[in-house]
């Protein structure tokens, strides 16, 4: 009997000891599920489908533009539950890339429940612009990082245009400090029906972005066909684009 007790004590201790080796434990409730965030891209007020390598005419500047690169950061996704609390996705960094069709972002392991809003940061928060070497979407190998003036390129839009004096256009928009900081946090309400996560369905949130909005308060390409440093132009162009991103629908 005494020995039996001793063995139990040993087992308990060793289990404790072993489990303390684990770096972290993932608490997965039974009903948690993945949420998809789909960002659809359209062009101009006609909202025709926007893709790379196709010529569009800008409705305001009348510039003809063919995009070869369109990529931007989306980060710090959060979902608001019907009880008012927020689920914050840990380590939440994505590059939306029309070149690789990465416009559908997956938010894994959202706890089961009903949600009314999503909060999205367009760009990268200032903390991660000053925190040294990062991985994943934030790795410098994604070529969305300024090496000579540390900071993330929050949005890259490049392409060709007969209206530009150089024949092409290059916009690398960023800057995370001061009044010209680019990153912007927005909240989208889903309206009357909440998003339901119960592990049995594919919950999706659909947003619509319109790259033409970059030039809503900007010069035409004959005047300015490139901007690759932070400043008021980067701020203006990015904010007209980010502010034009709107909620479309959810499905459960």
């Amino acid at each position, binding site marked *: 009997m*005494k*020995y039996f007790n*001793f063995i139990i*004590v*040993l087992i308990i*201790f*060793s289990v*404790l*000891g*072993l489990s*303390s*080796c684990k770096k972290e434990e993932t608490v997965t409730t039974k009903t948690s599920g993945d949420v998809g965030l789909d960002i659809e891209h359209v062009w101009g007020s006609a909202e025709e489908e926007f893709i790379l390598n196709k010529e569009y005419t800008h409705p305001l500047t009348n510039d003809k533009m063919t995009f070869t690169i369109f990529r931007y950061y989306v980060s710090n996704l959060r979902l608001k539950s019907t009880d008012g609390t927020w689920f914050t996705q840990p380590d939440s960094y994505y590059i939306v890339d029309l070149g690789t069709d990465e416009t559908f972002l997956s938010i894994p392991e959202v706890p089961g429940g009903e949600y009314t809003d999503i909060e999205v940061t367009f760009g990268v928060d200032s903390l991660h*612009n*000053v*925190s*040294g*070497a*990062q*991985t994943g979407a934030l*790795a*410098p*190998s*994604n*070529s969305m*990082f300024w*090496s*000579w*003036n*540390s*900071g993330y390129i929050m949005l890259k839009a490049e392409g060709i245009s007969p209206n530009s004096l150089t024949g092409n256009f290059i916009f690398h928009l960023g800057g995370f*400090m*001061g009044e010209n900081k680019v990153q912007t946090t927005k909240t989208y309400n889903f309206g009357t029906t909440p998003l339901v996560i119960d592990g049995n369905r594919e919950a999706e949130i659909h947003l619509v972005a319109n790259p033409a909005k970059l030039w809503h308060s900007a010069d035409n390409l004959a005047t300015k066909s490139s901007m690759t*440093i*932070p*400043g008021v132009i980067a701020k203006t162009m990015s904010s007209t684009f980010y502010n034009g991103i709107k909620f479309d629908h959810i499905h459960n």
Partner: protein
Amino acid sequence: MSTSIKQGLGLLFMIVILGSCQDIQDEASFDLSYPAYFPEPHYQFGKNKLTKDGFELGKSLFYDPIVSRDSTISCSSCHFQGHAFADHNSTLSTGIDGLKGVRNSPAMFNLAWNTSFMWDGGINHIEVMPVAPITNHVEMDETMAKLVAKLRSNAKYNAYFKQVFGNNTEVDDQQILFVLAQFMSLLVSDNSRYDQFRKGLVEFDEEENAGYLIFKKYCTQCHAEPLFTDFSFRNNGLEFKNDDFGRQKVPLLDDDFMKFKVPSLRNVEMTYPYMHDGRFRTLKMVLDHYSTSLVPHENLDPSLKNAGQIGIPLSENDKEKLLVFLKTLNDYTFISNPLFGE
């Protein structure tokens, strides 16, 4: 079996199990060390776990031209230990395909105390520092993605990285940048004659002392002891050349015109030529600049105006004494330390 023995055994068992999670002990004793009169380092390593292996791997990369596009240029091509990791005394460094940059390669030491990097302070963290030379088209002209791929397919490095970061990891940007940061951070220069003086091991002679006094009167406003820089950006009255606006390009403020980072003056005798573009070949020319040739830019630093006069009032005799003092900042242990050598 008595209860105390049982508990003892149980405890022992637990210790063995817990112990198996810990990394090897002597790794932990490998640390950034520095004299008591140095301030706290700015870089605290954070998620970057400093180990002897990590440091050694960083050193291998620093000396290996594999980092450049065509395997011709290593970090040490422009940062040579014998010159306190400044260039081989060339004005502008030569990078890939023989191309020249626009600035003089600064020395590399006590980098863990730097609050920013480059002459204009454009880089905000030691870990991302190497991305600039690696990807610069006139330096190493490689992409981070290709460098990652090259190191993954290189048997030696692949094994080396796994040894440092664990078998179930793959080489990535962060691992490369972490080990380079480990190597760079440990380049501590703290054994010059000045340091021996600070530690009470030697005394300055009369000339050195006189030079030290002049230095404290006119230079420490910017080249502050004990690191010989306060890491600020100042306009020190150089003539505007080659469209180099200095810090002005960085946060886009006009007041930043021609401001450059105050460089440390440790090892300064070995790091010629001087200033951001290497325009002065000798320290005497630097002192002549401060005493007689300052350009009165609108944002010239106020500490370079004395009693309504622009410039530092230095007699030829003062200059000689200053030069004697500046030699006390040479750290011969640092430039010959095999720990940092190839």
